[in-house]
């Protein structure tokens, strides 16, 4: 019984007028965000307008179709592809190479991304020391707004969207989400669910090693995304080996395995930052629930989840695991409308669309503010070639 696909008739489309009305706040927000950072440069203007229209259009489609995942994925993949374009261009323009020379590290001009945040907490708390070769405040070059600014934006956005960061802000996850969406069917379907504990193991080890070695251990040894951003310029054989490790991890976890499994394998099985962000699912007011009275269970939600955040046990309990990224895949896949968006404290499946809307307003606003600016920058880089 569980395997019969008893799909309901397709969800009726919301009216254009009502969809436009619901999209209006997002359109105003886009105007505010892109207008606030308006530049005189023509390619920047075209990029900003294009990005704003793109984000507004995607939100409109989310409202019109009452579906989330498919439209969010367009944004996320665009972010994953365009971030490296803008970033690598900036890096090469500023210092001529993707490799970070030791001079830049000594000068405190290593750009800081959010991934090392959990590994820096213990040394900072115990010895007031930031074990990262960056600058707390802006310091020229690639230091950007400084580490305090990245930590500030991370905290502000995490308070609002929690682990939704991994679906609406992370500028790396879109690469593997794009890879995972390429094949029509997964070649590897059976995955031992215990692999989903991997990120926690990596987090535990990296936190301990960062304290012991007093360095950002994940950045130095394991981060696969150095392949699409920057890496420590190798000064000896060990440096070359370190760089080989991240290339291998990128090729495996971000390209090959998503193609084979149609899952976000780096996120689901490896990313220590994702494990850390999972903690904020406990504090977030939004979550995804399974209405047991409607669930058959056909486990289509489980199969559609890109991060294995639904198990047989959790479906019986009517909930997702802590690793849920709020991407909306399970909700969209459920033929019985049993998987629903939910606000903690409220009854499950009573006005789920209200919960979805409230979450999406928060998440999409953050996506426009943060990811949108990155997409615009990437587009601007490309446009500069022609304009």
């Amino acid at each position, binding site marked *: 019984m569980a395997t019969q696909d008893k799909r309901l008739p397709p969800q009726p489309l919301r009216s254009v007028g009502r969809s436009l009305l619901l999209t209006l706040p997002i359109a105003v927000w886009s105007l505010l*965000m892109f207008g*606030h950072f308006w530049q005189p440069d023509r390619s920047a203007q075209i990029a900003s307008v294009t990005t704003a229209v793109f984000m507004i259009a995607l939100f409109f489609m989310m409202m019109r179709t009452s579906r989330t995942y498919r439209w969010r994925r367009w944004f996320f993949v665009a972010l994953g592809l365009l971030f490296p374009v803008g970033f690598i261009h900036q890096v090469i323009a500023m210092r001529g190479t993707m490799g970070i020379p*030791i*001079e830049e*590290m*000594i*000068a*405190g001009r290593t750009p800081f991304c959010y991934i090392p945040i959990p590994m820096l907490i213990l*040394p*900072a708390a115990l*010895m*007031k*020391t*930031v*074990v*990262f*070769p*960056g*600058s*707390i*405040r802006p310091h020229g070059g690639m230091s950007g*707004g*400084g*580490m*305090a*600014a990245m*930590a*500030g*934006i991370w*905290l*502000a*956005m995490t*308070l*609002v969207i929690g682990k939704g960061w991994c679906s609406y802000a992370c500028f790396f996850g879109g690469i593997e989400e794009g890879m995972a969406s390429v094949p029509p069917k997964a070649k590897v379907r059976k995955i031992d669910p215990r692999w989903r504990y991997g990120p926690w193991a990596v987090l535990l080890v990296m936190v301990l090693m960062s*304290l*012991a*070695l*007093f*360095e950002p251990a994940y950045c130095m040894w394991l981060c696969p995304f150095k392949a699409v951003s920057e890496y420590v310029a190798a*000064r*000896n054989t060990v440096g070359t080996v370190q760089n080989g490790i991240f290339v291998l991890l990128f090729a495996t976890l971000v390209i090959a395995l998503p193609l084979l499994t149609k899952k976000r394998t780096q996120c689901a099985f490896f990313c220590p930052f994702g494990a850390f962000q999972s903690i904020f699912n406990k504090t977030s*007011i*939004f979550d995804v629930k399974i209405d047991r009275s409607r669930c058959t269970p056909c486990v289509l939600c489980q199969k559609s989840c890109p991060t294995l955040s639904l198990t047989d046990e959790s479906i019986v309990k009517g909930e997702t695991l802590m690793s849920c990224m709020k991407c909306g895949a399970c909700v969209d896949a459920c033929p019985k409308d049993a998987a629903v968006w939910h*606000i*903690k*404290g*409220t*009854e499950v499946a009573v006005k789920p669309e209200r*919960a979805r809307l*409230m*979450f999406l*307003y*928060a998440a999409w*606003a*953050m996506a426009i*503010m943060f990811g949108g600016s990155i997409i615009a920058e990437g587009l601007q880089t490309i446009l500069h070639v022609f304009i």
Partner: protein
Amino acid sequence: MTTRAKLGYTAAGLTVFATLLVPFVLYGAFTKGFAGLGLHVDEMYSGGPKVRTIQAAGYSIDIHRPVSPHMLQHEKPFVQLDWRPVGALPPHVSDLVDVDGDGQPDIRVSFDVPKDPKAPLRVNVEPLNPRYQAMRNVGKPQFSELIVRVDDAILVRVPLAQQ
């Protein structure tokens, strides 16, 4: 509607409201907060605070506080010296430096200053005080033993002899 549901909706509404505050209030506030925590970047990277300046002919040598490795860092203890401004340095620098400020020279540091700012640098350090290690034609192999150009200064890190 139950009280719990009312609270839930209130919290959700506040979250959406907080979203509006992120770029205009929260981001700035949290950034200031983190910057005001009194944290500092590990001295293995930053070189430690400057403690003294020695004036030479047209340029100066900044001496930093010695830096010791923390926990299990794979580096040696070192002291950083900065020659600045680079434009005022002679083509070949060979300076006796009193590092610890006791009036006696501790090391002789010698390096060429190439015209091309991107040209690799090499340094020789001859210790006159056994507290400092010798350096022979050293480039930039590691954080605790190097010569590099950073902006308008040439930085030399001299390892301290292991105790």
